[in-house]
């Protein structure tokens, strides 16, 4: 969290309630390269970049060629590779730079060298037009003059690079060799003189507020325009407090004036509905239209701005229709990065789920969390001592509210020295952790990447002595302010720093921690209280003076996160899946752990924005994210608190948190009826834990996020393309959180053709399209989609660990064809044994009034699979509920795995049409049984 810090302390007067200080952060015209590239685009006549035909070389899966800037005669190299699974990579670099441009980030971002794929064939025309036939329907066409690359599917253009000619690549140069561009200037007396062009400003030095960026390397940015042909909407590129479907950024009614920005920053009380950058940055954009999705991954960790405009649909203009035919809206984007090389991946889907799988193949699978991570987390800045921690812990039990993790913010440390404890307040941290462990609960404590410059502090001493900190240009440790006062920042880009950091989490070094202690990385953008834009100066140096911070800024948070998670993983002999929450993030963060949307505010608007913000993360390959419940700053009303808990029940990461200036608001402190309502929603979360866990496994295997935009599940329904106030959890549950005060009803869009069943009453809604539904305070509108089987654990326990052996209730939401299916994933919930096959994936099928299951393990006959089933076979199905049952059956016949037939009791509710089968006594993972409704 970012609290009132030194810099702001002087500025904030009166109440804490204020708003984001826009002046603290740059607009495009205050960022030299953004201004230059926007101006370049606006004043362009003809693109000077030509592909040199003679340099073209083709292989079975790639193209190489040189590009010449005919204005400067600088040569660039173009490399295009076709990769497996409808993916392509395009790289453009200087052919002979005066020194290397930063290209090393790929080793942190990609999980390996992407696998190439042979094309069917290729041809080059006489005028240098290259056509790559990927397969029978897909091809790439590279035009040489100016260079333009187009991806086509069924001969329709899908993605076009340099469609508008905005491609611009600033070559490295010395200040001495630089020849300024001169333009004519007409004086008032009519005379003409030559002056330096506007674009010459800010090339060698740039000032923002009181900071001057010395820019020793001068201009080194590059930009490219990318058109998504016929795609009305684009998504992704978090993190912004904006809508799911991205807005246009070049002014006009309802549009932004500034580009979306990717530059990890700690924004105090960030503004909603804004393209300003926030804590994280993932340069992955998806485009969608009816029948097709496509995407691009702009792999670059330097400051990046993205302009978005849309072409007018010709539907309404008869003249244009006459000339060009009925052309749908296209989305045109303009990507601008400050440094590095152009390294772009193109995904041809064809669905959003396919793109996320394609993206995961490059940047790695989402981490499979321990089960507890999906439970409810209770945090506050701060639980003040170990007695406080245990009292809060006990209160949850007294009030019958389940929770898994209690958290400690910065005050647990000895004067903000991470890896130490404030001993008077926590004299026996281990004892406290054991008490939590007895109930299966965990402790998460905060460790930030800024290290206090204190004497007799081992961490600082070692980091100083071994040169582990980020350096100033003069080679001395970079020092600035954060929580501890004067601090330095660990240089995670440097391998020895990364490895040293990992080791600090071993139990013998980090005293007072044990196996049920996990970590939280805050302030890792990095947040620097007295730095420009509350972060580090771009001229600071990494990796022993090798790279400026400028070239890799957005990577820093992700590396601190990864180093911490590696440390937590490696601290035990039998490795356990680490839990590390981070605030800053970048592409690849999904491999490491969850992130949250930072310091939000306890008001209705902020609650509303949790949905598009988390959905945007989902769309950008970061499936595990959440927002502080019920808002970090300020005191929530009881109603807001209850409504926020209801919403977060269906969001992936579920943590209550509070600013130090707020009143205590642990859910058990609410008065009735709010307390019971909040308890009910917490219990619903726990009932659905296994359902969530199965979705996490799907995210791990396929890259499909747990919390999904409607458009991901209903890609052919144009009504849902921009919908971000309702969403899907998996493909089974539709949720419409209530995000306005006093609402007791809301409009829900019932998409698709399947019946929907109210998750509370279990009654079929029999509605399609937009309908008003009741939503009294105790109800969040949530519906099972017909055709799904949802595994639930309805025994309310105090933590997820306590539920490990509990039996299941299967809810069968019958589809319109009376069919339903669903999966259940189980493993040991904490180690990596699942990667060795120690897991069970069971599919339940309900067809022709018979329920059965099927083992979906990758290797059914493996010993690991058999062992796992054997050790968990006693976990049974205690109840089956069939929704949408038209009439009472005559009976239920259960045939168990040994062929023994029993007839269990059942009840049929004639008003709800729910058939409940009592305890069929069949295993949830050992298949071979059958339950017949006759």
């Amino acid at each position, binding site marked *: 969290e970012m609290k009132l810090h030194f810099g702001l302390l002087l500025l904030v007067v009166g109440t804490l309630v204020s708003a984001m200080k826009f002046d603290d952060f740059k607009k495009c015209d205050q960022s030299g390269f953004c201004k230059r590239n926007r101006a370049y685009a606006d004043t362009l006549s003809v693109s000077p970049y030509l592909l040199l035909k003679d340099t073209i070389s083709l292989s079975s899966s790639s193209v190489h060629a040189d590009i010449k800037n005919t204005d400067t005669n600088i040569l660039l190299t173009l490399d295009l590779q076709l990769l497996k699974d409808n993916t392509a990579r395009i790289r453009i670099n200087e052919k002979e730079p005066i020194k290397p441009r930063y290209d090393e980030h790929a080793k942190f971002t990609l999980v390996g060298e992407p696998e190439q794929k042979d094309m069917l064939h290729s041809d080059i025309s006489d005028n240098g037009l290259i056509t790559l036939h990927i397969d029978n329907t897909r091809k790439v066409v590279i035009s040489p003059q100016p260079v333009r690359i187009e991806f086509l599917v069924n001969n329709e253009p899908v993605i076009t690079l340099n469609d508008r000619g905005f491609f611009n690549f600033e070559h490295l140069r010395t200040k001495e060799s630089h020849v300024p561009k001169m333009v004519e200037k007409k004086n008032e007396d009519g005379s003409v003189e030559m002056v330096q062009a506007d674009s010459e400003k800010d090339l060698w030095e740039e000032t923002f507020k009181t900071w001057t960026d010395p820019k020793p390397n001068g201009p080194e940015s590059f930009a490219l325009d990318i058109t998504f042909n016929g795609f009305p909407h684009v998504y992704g590129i978090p993190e912004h407090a904006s809508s799911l479907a991205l807005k246009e950024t070049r002014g006009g009614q309802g549009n932004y004036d500034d580009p979306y920005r990717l530059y990890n920053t700690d924004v105090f009380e960030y503004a909603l509905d804004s393209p300003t950058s926030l804590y994280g940055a993932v340069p992955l954009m998806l485009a969608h239209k009816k029948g097709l999705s496509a995407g691009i991954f702009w792999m670059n960790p330097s400051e990046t701005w993205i302009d978005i405009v849309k072409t007018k649909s010709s539907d309404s203009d008869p003249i244009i229709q006459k000339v060009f035919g009925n052309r749908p809206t296209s989305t045109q984007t303009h990507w601008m990065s400050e440094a590095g090389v152009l390294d772009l991946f193109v995904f041809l889907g064809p669905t959003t789920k396919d793109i996320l799988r394609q993206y995961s193949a490059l940047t790695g699978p989402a981490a499979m969390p321990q089960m507890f991570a999906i439970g409810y987390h209770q945090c506050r800045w701060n639980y003040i*001592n170990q*007695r406080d921690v*245990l009292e809060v812990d*006990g209160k949850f*039990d007294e009030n019958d509210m389940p929770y898994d993790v209690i958290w400690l913010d910065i005050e647990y440390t000895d004067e903000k020295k991470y890896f130490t404890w404030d001993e008077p307040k926590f004299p026996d941290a281990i004892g406290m952790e054991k008490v939590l462990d*007895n109930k299966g609960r965990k402790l998460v404590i905060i460790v930030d990447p800024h290290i206090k410059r204190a004497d007799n502090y081992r961490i600082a001493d070692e980091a100083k002595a071994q040169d582990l900190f980020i350096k100033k240009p003069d080679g001395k440790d970079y020092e600035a302010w954060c929580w501890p006062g004067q601090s330095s920042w660990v240089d995670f880009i440097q391998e020895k720093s990364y490895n040293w950091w990992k080791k600090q989490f071993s139990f013998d070094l980090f005293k007072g921690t044990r196996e049920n202690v996990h970590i939280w990385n805050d302030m890792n953008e990095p947040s620097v209280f007295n730095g420009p834009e509350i972060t580090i100066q771009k001229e600071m140096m990494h990796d022993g003076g090798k790279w400026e911070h400028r070239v890799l800024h957005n990577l820093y948070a992700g590396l601190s996160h990864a180093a911490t998670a590696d440390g937590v993983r490696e601290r035990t002999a039998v490795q356990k899946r680490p839990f590390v929450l981070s605030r800053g993030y970048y592409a690849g963060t999904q491999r490491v752990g969850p992130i949250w949307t930072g310091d939000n505010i306890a008001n209705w608007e902020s609650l509303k924005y949790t949905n598009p913000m988390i959905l945007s993360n989902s769309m950008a390959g970061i499936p595990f994210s959440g927002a502080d419940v019920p808002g970090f700053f300020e005191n929530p009303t009881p109603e807001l608190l209850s409504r926020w808990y209801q919403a977060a029940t269906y969001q992936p990461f579920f943590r209550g948190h509070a600013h130090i200036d707020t009143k205590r608001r642990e859910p058990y402190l609410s008065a009735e009826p709010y307390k019971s309502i909040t308890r009910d929603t917490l219990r619903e979360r726990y009932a659905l834990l296994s359902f969530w866990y199965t979705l996490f496994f799907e995210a791990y295997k396929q890259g499909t996020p747990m919390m999904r935009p409607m458009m991901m599940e209903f890609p052919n329904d144009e009504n849902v393309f921009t919908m971000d106030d309702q969403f899907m959890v998996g493909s089974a549950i539709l949720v419409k959180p209530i995000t306005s005060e006093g609402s007791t009803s809301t409009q829900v869009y019932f998409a698709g053709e399947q019946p929907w069943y109210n998750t509370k009453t279990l009654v079929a809604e029999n509605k399609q399209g937009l309908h008003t539904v009741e939503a009294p305070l105790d109800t969040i509108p949530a519906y099972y989609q017909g055709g799904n089987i949802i595994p639930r654990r309805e025994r309310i326990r105090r933590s997820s660990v*306590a539920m490990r052996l509990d039996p299941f209730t299967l809810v069968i939401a019958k589809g319109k064809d009376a069919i339903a299916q669903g999966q259940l994933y189980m493993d040991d919930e904490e180690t990596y044994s699942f990667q060795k096959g120690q897991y069970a994936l069971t599919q339940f099928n309900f067809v022709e009034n018979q329920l059965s299951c099927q083992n979906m393990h990758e290797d059914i006959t493996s010993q690991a699979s058999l062992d796992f089933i054997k050790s968990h076979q006693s976990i049974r199905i205690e109840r089956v509920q069939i929704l949408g049952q038209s009439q009472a059956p005559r009976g239920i016949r259960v045939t168990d795995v040994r062929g023994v037939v029993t007839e269990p009791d059942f009840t049929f509710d004639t008003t709800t049409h729910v058939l409940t089968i009592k*305890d069929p006594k069949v295993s949830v993972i050992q298949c071979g049984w059958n339950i017949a409704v006759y």
Partner: protein
Amino acid sequence: MVALKLSCILAAVTLVSASNIRGVDPEKYDLYNPSRDGQWTCLDGSKVISHNAINDDYCDCPDGSDEPGTSACPNSLFYCVNEGHIPAYIKSYAVNDGVCDEACCDGSDETSSLIHCPNRCKEVGETYREQQANLKQSTQAGLAAKAQLITEAQDQITQWEEQETILQDEIILKKSNMLKLQRELNILESKSTTNKKAKCQSDGLDVATLKHDIVILQKELDGLKDILAEMKVKHNHNFHDMAVKSAIFGYDEFMTRYESMKANIEQDLAHIDAEVSVQEEIEEELAEEEGEETVVEESTEEPVDEGKKHIHTLADTLLEKLESILPTKYKNTVMDALIPLLKKDEQPKENNFDGGISNEADVENARKLFQNAENEVNSLNSELEKVKQDLAVDYGKDKEWLKLKDVCVEKDEGEYTYSLCFLGDAYQKSNKDSTRTFLGKFEKFDGDKDLYKVHVHTHGTRCWNGPERSVKAKIECGLKNEILEVSEPEKCEYHYRMLSPAVCQSDDKVQQQQTEKSFIPIHEEL
């Protein structure tokens, strides 16, 4: 060896009998008998189920009564026998959840493969009993200290109550003296001028004052009459106290004449009223004569003198009578108090009329006397106010907090030393530079069940960008007054954990609470 075997057998026996219906208090087994046809009715009567469905790990009854021994129903309770300790109920969610519950020391809550819970009841029971004994001991010491506090408080209260009576009496006396002096002052002042209207008003005031005196005397008289009447009825006849007997005799005699005397007085008062109203009319007429000043008519003075005469007669009679009927031991006190009151009217009269036309010095002197008297009354009034306030303050059920008011304790918490004066002020003092921050003044008791166990101090120094500081002190029973721990769970809201004998409760009460507690699965952090 023999002992070991025996305990094994005992354990086995216990198991057999307890396994009848797992999770049920053996005394309640009867509730779980099947009907003749093998059915059983949920304890809330809502449903009839097969007796076999009891503890079949499936929840049938809405009230959860069919699953006392499993976690199947969310709302049932599990009974742990806890032999060697005290039995306990835990909530169903804690059954077979892999946690050996504190409350279930016999480990009977866990039968799954997740965990084996050893029977710890012997040691837990021992520890518990030891703790109970310690608790009892410290509670008893605390109670003794509390009893002392209460006794001292009662003494203080009695003292205040006496003081209140004395002050009230004194105020009456002083007030009438003050009024008299005021009257004199007024006369002197009016004499120093020739303003007849002022004289008239002054005489009117005289009459009013005298009338007021009469009414007060009548009230006093009635008070005395009641005292004597009560003495007559309630005195111990077996003690042949001659003084008492003579007092009763005198009282009886007085009473024979009292009614006629009272009638006289009332008649006189009515007469005065009539005269006064006549005079007021005259005054009004005078006022209407457009400022024309006339010599004061003798007649206007007459009713006043008449009234005074009546009072003097009455006073003399009263004094005479009282002197004869009062027991010697009260006589002096009462007479000393009454004589100045009853006779006071006479002396100033002499002064007034002796002095003839008063001079400036006389006026000044009279003013001084009046002011002194007024000050005296005021200071007595504020003294009385204070005593009344003291008496009105809530010092706890038995005034146990009275003697602790403004008793201060402090605690060094490292960075700061925190202090609190009971029912007074609380402070936070920096140990670095001794700067002191005011945390709040006592506002109220705020314990839910035990109101006086929580003290709230509010309106401390406001925090920067935050609320006013405040203190919530939670006080537990202990021999000494002491701060155990100070924390700040919310910014600028300080929580004190304290000890004081004032909150100690009798043994019975404590035990009763302990028993109640053992039925709810609350984990006491030791």
